[in-house]
């Protein structure tokens, strides 16, 4: 699918229509390795070293911000390079924070109805958010925040605090939106994309032009019009638009159905687990996965404003693919002994 969506751009940019396919295949191999690696790591090991993982993640994040060390891609200084490969430390932060929260919530489950219990981990998480926002990477921040929110929700915290959280969150998001004009434009263009069809509404319109004509059964494999430079980055953020354009509503529903199946299995796994730490960890990782899927699909079908979040497992992108597969590996680990 990555090949399908990207061949035209790849041909144009790198002179090789298979460019993205080759790289994605390589990442997939690494990712599958990561999956098996993850499935071998027991929950107790993770729980034991959770604090260290978090510390290392913070260190890497700080490293990224040091000029000359971090690689700047697409306007964000979020990459660290080793030899020929590069990765995003923020991906590791996501997992380590979720593990850290899981450990903390298990430990203080009974006291978690008091707000002061929750405050220390929230403060730690805030440091992470600030570091990520310095890159800046709003999308990652939001995804992580929602995941941690889901974990906290699953504690004994009274609902009134969530209402307060919600408002604070909305307030914070508003501040963030207003603090960067491009975010504000995205929101405006979401409300009426045709007002500025060549500017901020461009991506939304182009996405609709891919999806609408797709119809019930699509234009057929390789028959996408929109991937011919109309839709920017068709292999990442808008890959679902190309899927629907070529395979129609039918193809789109199959993809959504597969994700739904994965969610279902994950929830089943969470309910069947007897270990509170494992339950929290899986819930966090699942939320991380789900929120990316839902936001990406929502953006593509113009249900949400454009955010720049890729579609897990399908979009092009090595770091994301590997980390996702690794985290799925962590979830399927059967070892629940203390």
């Amino acid at each position: 699918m990555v090949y399908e969506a990207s061949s035209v751009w790849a041909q144009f940019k790198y002179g090789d229509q298979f460019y993205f396919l080759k790289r994605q295949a390589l990442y997939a191999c690494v990712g599958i390795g990561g999956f098996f690696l993850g499935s071998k790591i027991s929950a107790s090991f993770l729980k034991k070293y959770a604090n260290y993982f978090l510390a290392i993640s913070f260190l890497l994040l700080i490293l990224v911000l040091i000029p000359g060390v971090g690689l700047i891609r697409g306007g964000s200084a979020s990459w660290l390079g080793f030899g020929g490969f590069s990765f995003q430390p923020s991906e590791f932060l996501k997992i380590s924070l979720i593990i850290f929260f899981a450990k903390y919530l298990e430990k203080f489950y009974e006291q978690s109805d008091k707000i002061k219990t929750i405050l220390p981990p929230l403060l730690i998480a805030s440091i992470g958010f600030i570091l990520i926002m310095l890159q800046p990477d709003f999308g990652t921040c939001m995804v992580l925040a929602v995941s941690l929110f889901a974990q906290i929700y699953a504690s004994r915290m009274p609902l009134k605090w969530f209402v307060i959280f919600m408002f604070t969150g909305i307030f914070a998001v508003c501040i963030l939106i207003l603090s960067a004009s491009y975010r504000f434009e995205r929101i405006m263009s979401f409300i009426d994309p045709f007002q500025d069809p060549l500017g901020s509404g461009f991506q939304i319109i182009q996405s609709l032009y891919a999806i609408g004509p797709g119809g019930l059964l699509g234009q057929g494999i390789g028959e996408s019009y929109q991937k011919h430079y109309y839709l920017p980055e068709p292999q990442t953020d808008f890959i679902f638009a190309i899927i629907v354009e070529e395979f129609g509503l039918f193809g789109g529903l199959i993809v959504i159905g597969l994700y739904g199946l994965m969610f279902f299995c994950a929830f089943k796994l969470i309910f069947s687990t007897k270990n509170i730490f494992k339950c929290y960890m899986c819930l966090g990782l699942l939320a991380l996965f789900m929120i990316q899927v839902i936001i990406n699909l929502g953006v593509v079908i113009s249900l949400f404003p454009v955010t720049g979040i890729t579609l897990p497992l399908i979009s092009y992108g090595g770091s994301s693919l590997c980390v996702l597969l690794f985290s799925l590996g962590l979830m399927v680990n059967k070892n629940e002994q203390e």
Partner: protein
Amino acid sequence: MLPLMLIKRIRTIAVITVLLVASIVFKLTYNTIFMHQELVTLASELWQRSFPLYAPRGYIIDRNGELLATNEPTLSLYAIPYQVKDKMQTSVNLASILGVDQEIIFEKLNKKASIVSFHPYGRKLTYGQSEQIEKLSLDGIYLVQDNLRTYPYKEYMASLIGFVGIDNIGFAGLESYYDNYLTGKRGSLNYYMDAKGGLFPNTQSEIIAPSQGMSLELTIDLRLQNILEREMENAYLQYSADEVVGIIMDPNNGEILAIGNRPTYDNNRYQDYDQTIYNRLLPVYNSFEPGSTFKAITFASAINENLIDIDNDTYYDKGYEIVAGTRINSWKKGGHGLQTYLEVLENSSNPGFVQIARMLGKDKLYQYVKDFGFNQKTGVDIQGENKGIMFSYDNFNELEQATTAFGQGISVTAMQLVTAFSAVINGGYLFKPHVCKSLLSSSLMERVYEVTPTVVRQVISEETSKTMRRALESVVSRGSGRKAYVEGYRVGGKTGTAQIAENGVYVDGKYILSFIAGAPMNDPRLVCYFSIKNAHNAVQYGGTTVGPIIGRIIEDCLKTLGVEKNYEGIEREYTWMDTKTAQVPNFIGKDKKEVKSRDFTFVFVGSGNKVIDQLPRVGEMIPIGSKVVIMLGGE
């Protein structure tokens, strides 16, 4: 076991997830199924590009199928900027071929447009230009078929036919008047293009063929037009005239057989001329004082009202007539004396027409002038028609009535005059003149619409018309129109000499010399009007200067139309102007008995048998039949 509250809360998260996924499914379905048609339309606009394919215009042909306006295939230049690799080199090459600044082309090639055209220098290229461009085979530069409108007869009929602009839209003349019919339906070459201007792979470009416009068949007869053009050209050059105007019409249906004017222009190169030349067809655009040609109208009105018996009623022309304190003179000093009304017309006697105006009276005269179509548009299918000028009814007093009766103080177009004159001789029917005979399919095989003659009204009776034919014929054979006489074709007509008024004042020595005539008078086939404005080195008299021209036009046209000659008409009468003359021989010294001659009659004075003197003297040229006075004397 997990705490119950944890399970409950996670269950809530699962429910929220289900709701979110469901809303995504719903929105996706909405977009792909319900918005499908609308988005397909919008997206197609985004993907589809089209090259215009210009439709050829319909032809314009004369009544015998001769092409008067046709199309020459040519090529126009287009560029797809994205596909032009070396924009600098391409612009340099094109600039030298097209003869424009390199920068202009360079700028065009850098436009953010899918297709650019080069207007106007890149449209309708010459054969040489397109060949050079073809040879260079430049990337992204295309030559697309176009049509160049051409007029094979150039200056002939230019004012009538007009021309088209660079986009093949009619700008002047019939090209403009009938533009909707002549314009074809533009076609296009549609294809799908990616966002950067490249062709989509695996897509078919679709050609919507342009369809040619309808063709126009004119009532014009090219053969007659050529005769008229020849005479207009000659008169224009010979007399260094300001303007020459000519119309030939079929009086039986209002069809215009030939029409034109000088000065004219070449409509293939209209850009080279001033707008004042090409924007008007003088026979319908100009109005002027008709002068004596108008007398035919007044005369017919009086006959129709049974006011005059042209053979028996008489009028004594003493040389002038006083109207409302103003003296109106006859053109002949001392007047024409006692005349029948037929002679009043033959001699074009102004005082005689003053009398006719008095007999008709204000209302009748006014009504007839209007009924003959003056002071209103004829409705001819030609642009820019003038309706002329006439005194308003309230100002139509005695003097105005008198001058209008002999064609002064009224302004008419040549078209109005020809239409009215046709009614005078065709049995009384005023037709709506027209120049479009029919609309044909582009293949010229099928008649789509045929113009039928329209009778506006019957102005005079058949009987009056018959009398008028005889009267007008007599003007040509015996009166002021003698010079238009054609042996065997019974020409009937009326001369006209009108002073040109500039800013309301008559200018001395500037005249419009005109002649209107129909033929043959036993069965009118055509009416011809011809006028010369401000002729130099010419006798400033319509009959003398234009008469011979009308004669030639009518003779050539009737011969072309295959009309048989007929010798039953009124015999030509010779006057001093063109009578046969003979030299007076010497009779002095001869006996009275010897004084004899076939050419002369004699009056004898004195007594005796010998001729002692004679008048005129020996050797003088005098008209045959003249009297020679012989003085007798001797033993």
